[in-house]
Structures are given as C-alpha cells and as structure tokens.
C-alpha cells in the first residue's frame, strides 16, 4: 500500500475488533461498573443537585437536558480514551500489533478494527447512560431513544480517528495530556453538554460550530426530547467528515509507525 494512500477497509478487520471484544468481556465487571457508575453519579450529583436550582433549561427539565448531553459527551470520552490509552498499550508495551502484523492482517485492518471497537465502546457506554437515565426518570422511554444509538456510534467514530492519530505520534502516555486539556476538556465544557450554547458570546457560538461534540449533543438532544431538528443532516455530515478525515490520517500515521 502507498504510504499516503486512502485506508483500505476489509472484513478481516473484524478479527481485531473481536479480539478487543473478548478482552473486554474478560474484564466485564470493572468495565460495567464504570459505564453505569459514572452516569449515575453525574445525574444524581449534577442533575438533582444543580437541577434543584435550575429547574428547566431550554424547555426541558435540567435532568433530561443533562442526560441527553452526557450521552453524547460520554461517546466522545470513551472513544478518545480507548483510542489513546488502550491503543497505545496494544501498540507499544504489549506489542499486540506486532503480533497481529505477522498474520495476513495489515496496518489498515488494525486501524479499521480499532476505530470500530472505539465506536462500539461508545455505544456500550451510551446505552448504559440511557438505561440509567430512563430508570431514574430523567428521560422518557420513547422510540427516539433508540435512534440515539447510531448517533452515538457515529460520534464514537468521529472521535476515534483523532485519538488514533494522537496515539500514532505519542512517545509515551503523558503525551495524551496535551490532547485531553487542549481538545477534549474544552469541548466537554463548551459544546452544550451542561448549558445551551446560545448563552455563549456570539464569536464563541460560531467557533463551537466547528466542534464535533456540538453536533453530537444537538443531534442526540433533539432525538431524546423528540423535538427533532431541521438541520439534522448538517450534524450527521459534520460527524461523518470528522470520522472519515480521522480515519485517513489515523491510517497514514499508524502505517508510518508500524511499517518502518
């Protein structure tokens, strides 16, 4: 394959995805404790605590507002963590990719398999949040909730690519702090998870339109609330663009790191 060629997507990549799934299944207890525990704490602490003072936000109870935002932001953080810390672990100390590359799979299959796996973990985490939110009465059990799942998967893909890019150039784990503090945390704060973005200064409102999380939050919130949105396709296009560009650069840089 050409070093700068587009990523090749092959079915064989599912073997990499499946390997990760089997490892995840082994560590199911701690994984699910994290998936269910965190949203419970957020919704209880912030939703009830802050919600007591806030009441309604953007026309819905604050607990629902928050729950629909956290579904999207957790897709971001889950995919980012998996794409950085876990991918780096498999790539460097554990040498899993070295082992995989000695088989008919190649670097592009690793990238595709990992991207799908990151998005799968986003899906697992978002499902846990939706279950908790419905159980707590934060969200109504509507058919719209099911539609959030593909959005969450796409959000996972949109963040997995950039995370793999960071992994591919990272000399060590500490390097990820830059990405966390410069990219993930600002998005978490600014993309409308905790408050509507129209309360931001106008220039900042325009700026956050370039952030993928803004679109993930807007889309999942409209689906959860059942309000729908006229610009749903814009959100989908932005998230897909991030996913595709991220996939491309992840493939180029992972190849460069693995095939020297």
């Amino acid at each position, binding site marked *: 394959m050409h070093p700068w060629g587009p990523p090749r997507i092959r079915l*064989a990549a599912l*073997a990499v995805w*499946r*390997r990760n799934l*089997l*490892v995840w299944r*082994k*560590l199911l207890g701690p994984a699910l404790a994290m998936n269910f525990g965190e949203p419970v704490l957020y919704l209880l602490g912030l939703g009830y605590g802050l919600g007591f003072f806030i009441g309604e936000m953007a026309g819905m109870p604050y607990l629902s507002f928050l729950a629909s935002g956290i579904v999207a932001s957790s897709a971001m953080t889950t995919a980012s963590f998996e794409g950085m810390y876990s991918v780096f672990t498999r790539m460097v100390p*554990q*040498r*899993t990719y*070295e*082992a*995989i*590359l*000695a*088989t*008919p*799979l*190649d670097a592009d299959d690793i990238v595709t398999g990992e991207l799908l796996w990151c998005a799968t973990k986003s899906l697992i985490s978002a499902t846990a949040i939706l279950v908790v939110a419905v159980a707590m009465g934060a969200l109504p059990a509507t058919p719209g909730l099911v539609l959030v799942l593909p959005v969450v998967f796409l959000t996972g893909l949109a963040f997995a690519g950039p995370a793999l890019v960071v992994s591919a150039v990272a000399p060590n784990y500490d390097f990820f702090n830059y990405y966390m503090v410069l990219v993930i945390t600002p998005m978490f704060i600014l993309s409308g998870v905790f408050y509507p973005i129209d309360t931001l200064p106008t220039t900042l409102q325009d700026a956050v339109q370039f952030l993928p999380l803004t679109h993930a939050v807007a889309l999942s919130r409209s689906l959860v609330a059942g309000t729908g949105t006229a610009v749903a396709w814009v959100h989908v296009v932005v998230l897909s663009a991030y996913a595709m560009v991220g996939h491309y650069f992840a493939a180029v840089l992972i190849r460069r790191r*693995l*095939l*020297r």
Partner: protein
Amino acid sequence: MPAVLAQARGLRKRYRGLTAVDGIDFHIEPGICFGFLGPNGAGKTTTLRMLLGLTPPDAGRLEVFGLPLPRCGRDVRRHTGVVPQTDNLDPDFTVEENLRIYGSYFGLKGSELDERIARLLEFAALAERARARTETLSGGMKRRLTLARALVNAPELVVLDEPTTGLDPQARHLVWARLEQLRAEGTTLLLTTHYMEEAERLCDRLVIMDHGRILAEGSPRELVRCHVEPEVVEIRNAEPTLVTGLSRAGDCRLEQVGSSLYCYTERAAPLLERLRDRKGLVFLHRPAGLEDVFLRLTGRELRD
C-alpha cells in the same frame, strides 16, 4: 514446491543516515534451516521484517514463495509463522485463547482449529497449562507458546528472530528439539541468532552478517573449512612476552579477544609442545568452530 523458497538481490534499507541492510543477496532452498548469524545491529531483524513485507526496502528485489515483497506481504504471511524476538503474547488471554485468537487472524475457526490447537498444545508441552493465564508462565513456556502460536496456520516457512535469547539451557534445548522436529517434517526454518552453538546445531546453511552486509555464506562446516585453520589453541591470560614469542615463531595466526589469545594453526602439535613447558598457563586445544569464523570475519585481528 519451488526450488527457491526465498530470494533477495541487492536488498537495501536505510534509516535516517544509518544503513541497516547494505545491499545483500541470498537465496533459501525449501526444507532447510537457514540462519542469519551476526552481532546486534548487523541488520538481521530488518532483513526478517523485509521478508515478511513489514519493512519496505529502499532498493533491491525480494521474493518469498515466488511472490514479490512488500507488495504480496499478506499472501506471504498467510503461509509463514513468526516467532518474534520479544514475546508478544496477549496477557489478557489464557494459553489456549492465545492460540485461538491468533488463529482467528488467519480466518481459522471451528473443528479444524480445535484439532490444531490440541495438537500444538501437545507439541509445546503446554496441554496441562491450557487454561493458565500467559502471565503466569515461565520464560521457557512463553517461548514454547509463541512457537506453537507461529504454527497455528500450518506454515511452510517459520521465521524465528533470536528464538532462544534469554532462555535457560533446559528451555533452550527443548526449543531446539522442537525446531529439529519441524525441519524433519519438511518445514523451512529461517532464524537469526548470535549464539554460535545454536547456528552450528540447527542451521544447514547460514550467512554471517555485520554492518548490514553478508560477509560469508555456507554450511557451518564449509564456513569453518574455508575461513579458519582447523585447529585452535585458546590461551587464557597470555602475557605480552608470550604473545611476542608466538608471533615471532610464525607457525600460527593469533587473535586476541579480551584476555584470551586464540592461536589458529594447521597443526597444533608443535605449539602445544612449547606451551606445555610453561608453568601455570591455562590453555585449551580444540577443533575450530563457527565462533572462530565469526571472530575472524567480524572481530579484531591481532596485527603486528
């Protein structure tokens, strides 16, 4: 099977100013054990990576199974087993799961894979430990599991990068026995090593590499015959006066490595006669081996 299993011509690889492989040629016949012998940094691992299509060469031609590399890397790897220098087993899986998951990378599944795994666990003497986590295995067991894993696709060629580095003698001998068994069954073996004993024992043919170049090629016996005198007298703690005396006598070629003096000669009897008179001198008379060839080609020669 083709008459040539792997063939390289003018193979070259550079990393930012460092030439790892500097224009090498070799060909490997099927069914033999072929060795790359050389010190660390000689270019052995880079050569293996190129043979698997994982490192694109800067120049030269390379074919394995008649397929050009790196273009057909995936097809080559489908029929090749790899034992890496450092174990890269999956720590989250058991012994058996490691084989099973690895098989899945080759698209293997079902009863065929089950049977193969059972056979490989026997082969690696790990049947008792099938359900053990890989982290609990000893170094020798991990190496055997890595070897078993390399065989999960029933390869025609097995590539081993320093297969016994870091193993204790018992574990090393068990690995050697398994490799001899594989070769007897017709599998082609390709290994790198810096252990002379390993190369001498396992390899039908080998190349000696240093600084990215091939310095010599042949069977261990041919290499010894062509490159060094048949007899060696090894003297420990030779004093400078003795060295001077011996070099003046001129009936042997001298090489000093560390505190040892190696005297290479066609006939050692006269030399031994002279040494016997010296009290307290520790020396050893032995036939020349691969290590002597290696030192001759890569080491420092004493020149007066």
